[in-house]
């Protein structure tokens, strides 16, 4: 190797070394955003008493918990909302009592706006891009030939069960609140 080539090579390496000393922590600092936050989701919560839910009319309940936001923690924040739909109890005999209430995340699976209840038609409506869902959470096409439903999938069904309080003997609805990725045809848990 010629002296000149070696010198070029050495200066290049030293430059690259210095650049990497800034570059590597720099990139990892930027990628910190990919870490999972410690917000209080995935926890089972009692959200409503069964007797307080009207049949066939959805009720939105807030999911309250601690929300971590970088350097602050908000102890009692509304993390999201859940739509509870109580079906008429004329279900077949022997059906599980949990089947009586369905819980849907109020976050639109399309782009994450808040799904609202359209009282006129008694169905769900996302006002952002007019995604329409039935009370069963499935997508609905408003009219034949009209605009397609923008949502890639049905509303996200959440785990939901009925429990009896030991002291008051009241039946409560318990929901496991989870968040799912938006804009996908499949329901993927937020990683």
């Amino acid at each position, binding site marked *: 190797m010629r002296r000149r080539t070696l010198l070029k090579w050495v200066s290049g390496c030293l430059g690259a070394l210095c650049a990497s000393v800034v570059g590597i922590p720099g990139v990892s600092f*930027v*990628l910190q*955003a*990919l*870490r*999972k*936050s410690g*917000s209080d989701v995935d926890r089972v919560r*009692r959200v409503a008493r069964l007797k*307080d839910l*009207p049949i066939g*009319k959805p009720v*939105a309940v*807030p999911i*309250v918990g601690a*929300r971590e*936001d*970088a*350097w*602050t923690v908000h102890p009692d924040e*509304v993390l999201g909302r859940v739509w509870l739909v109580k079906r008429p109890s004329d279900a077949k005999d022997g059906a599980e009592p949990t089947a009586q209430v369905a819980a849907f995340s109020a976050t639109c699976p399309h*782009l*994450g*706006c*808040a799904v*609202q209840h359209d*009282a006129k038609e008694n169905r769900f409506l996302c*006002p*952002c*891009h007019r995604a329409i869902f039935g009370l069963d959470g499935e997508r609905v096409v408003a009219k034949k030939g009209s*605009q*397609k*439903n*923008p*949502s*890639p999938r049905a509303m996200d069904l959440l785990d939901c069960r009925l429990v009896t309080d030991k002291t008051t003997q009241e039946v409560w609805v318990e929901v496991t609140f989870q*968040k799912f*990725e*938006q*804009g*996908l*045809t499949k329901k993927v848990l*937020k990683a």
Partner: protein
Amino acid sequence: MQSFLNWLDARTDYRQLLAPIRNRVLPAGPRWAYSTASCLLWLFIIQLVTGLLLMLSYSPSTTTAWASVHFIEQSAAGHFLRGVHHFASHALIILCGVHVVRVLLARAFQAPRELLWVTGLLLFPLMLLWAISGNPLSGGLKGVSQIEVEGHIIGSTPWVGPIIQRILIGGEEVGHLTLTHLYFLHVGLLPLLVIGLLLFHIGQVYRHGLSVAELGGPHDDVSHWSAPNLTNLAAAHPLAMMPPRLKYFPHQTVRNMTVLTVVFGIVAAIAWQHGAPLDAPADPTLPHTPRPEWYFRSLFELRRYFTGDWEFVATIIIPAAVLGFFVLFPMLDRKCSPRVSAVLRVLVVLCGVGTWGGLTGMSYLRDWKDAEYIASSVEVDALSARARELADRSLLPPEGAITLLRDDPKTQGPLLFARHCASCHSHVDASGRGLVASEPSAPNLHGFGTAEWISGTLDPQRIASAHYFGKTKFAEGDMVSKVKELFDGIEEVEAVKMRDDLKLVAQALSTEAALPRAAAAGHDAQAPIVAGRELLSGRLSCTDCHRFHDKGELGSAPDLTGYGSREWLLGMIGNPQHERFYSGDRNDRMPAFAEDTEHPERNLLSRRELNLLVDWLRSDWYEPPMTSVPAKPRNPILAGN
């Protein structure tokens, strides 16, 4: 002065450095059309200056962003600077479009100007990105929900989308890091990129001069251009021989400055008149229907036609294809004869502007016809005005602006009432405005505790109406029959006397509520109240069933002591079956909203919510002193986001 400049020049050679600018010649003379470029540059500099100044007081974080922007708005200078910064960004985007169209029509992208064309085209999306990274920085409802949706749009792009989304948002959800990341983009990375590209762009302008086409010369085949010609086009061109050759400075400069003054004058006037919008502090619990800025409306509309997994076609593929088409357009153009090229370029401009305008117009038209969207915009405008009103009242707490509307009974009351009460109770005023129960089966609570409301319960016609107890089991109850009895078989003269007495009772009872509005209106004259109280426990024998201070017993009818007061309502809503209210089976379907004091989380209403609801029912909220200038109603659609 001159000697100082000579001294400076001897040391810095600045005259030679500035020579290309000072001696620049426009072979075809100055033109108004050339002004778009200079106007863009000056607007860009105005953005840098106003932006830097705003940085003096701005603080990016979810707790401080809105508060610091509101602080900036408090001073006339801050208000104006922020207004200029806001509206100049819109002007920049419009001018960028005009500039690109002008260059396209002038065929100024031909060799050797390809890099000029490409850098100019790249500056356009960067400018848009710069604008949208700035909109959420105010921490307002619209800007923050826009970036949320934009994040999801990026996130639904295959492969790299989710990673870019996370980095842009700074995590899973919009928070402090979203604002610091956007701030980094807005005042750090994007300005560096834009300045870099811009310097290159301007360097190319000086290197290549104006294009043959712009000079109005013959559309020669460019392949014969040799290297020396490229560096000094003016000399190579026949027009270069034609005297007189006006220098750029000041002949073009004066045109540039005139155009800039007009454009900036408009910007400054709007900024002075209206200021930049500041909507309610972002709060995911507030209802809101986000819409993109006008320059993204066409993509917003386009997205309606690509749903599901195909959405990225509208959000990524088509915009990238359009950009790619323009970047490669010079190659297509080179293959065309001058005449075909002219037709083609006009066609491209017409199609481009037509499609963009058509999509944008359709999107606005859709909103114009969408009553729900208009209602939601009006609501957001009202919330925004309310938030500013509350923030003007005093400085903000350390938790930030989000508490403004969260702790405001006027804002939260209707939401809580609609969620928890309006399945049975209405809350409508005499003209029928307000919240109507889905299945009215309980009294209308508008004005509860006022003398007017109470007098309805003492009126034999009204007490059994649907407005009061008509749809409850009390319609057949003791109170209704008692009130009817009062008027049974009495002469008209006595009935008039009775009505006057009952008016006194209503007035006496309403002072128990101690409503802030009633006190302010002076409805607390002492004499009638004393008379009313005496009637209550004396001749009218209300205290046979009700307790009133030291008269009567609890247990058979609601306590009239402090009737409608804050404390009374907290108790009543918390647990109507308490012996003070409707104990045992006398309660008609009213749920207890906060009976469990040991496990408050099991109650339907938290303590905070209950307080807000009660304050709202009692109209106990802050109202600013009346101002002489009524706020101008804003058009919810044209007002933009």
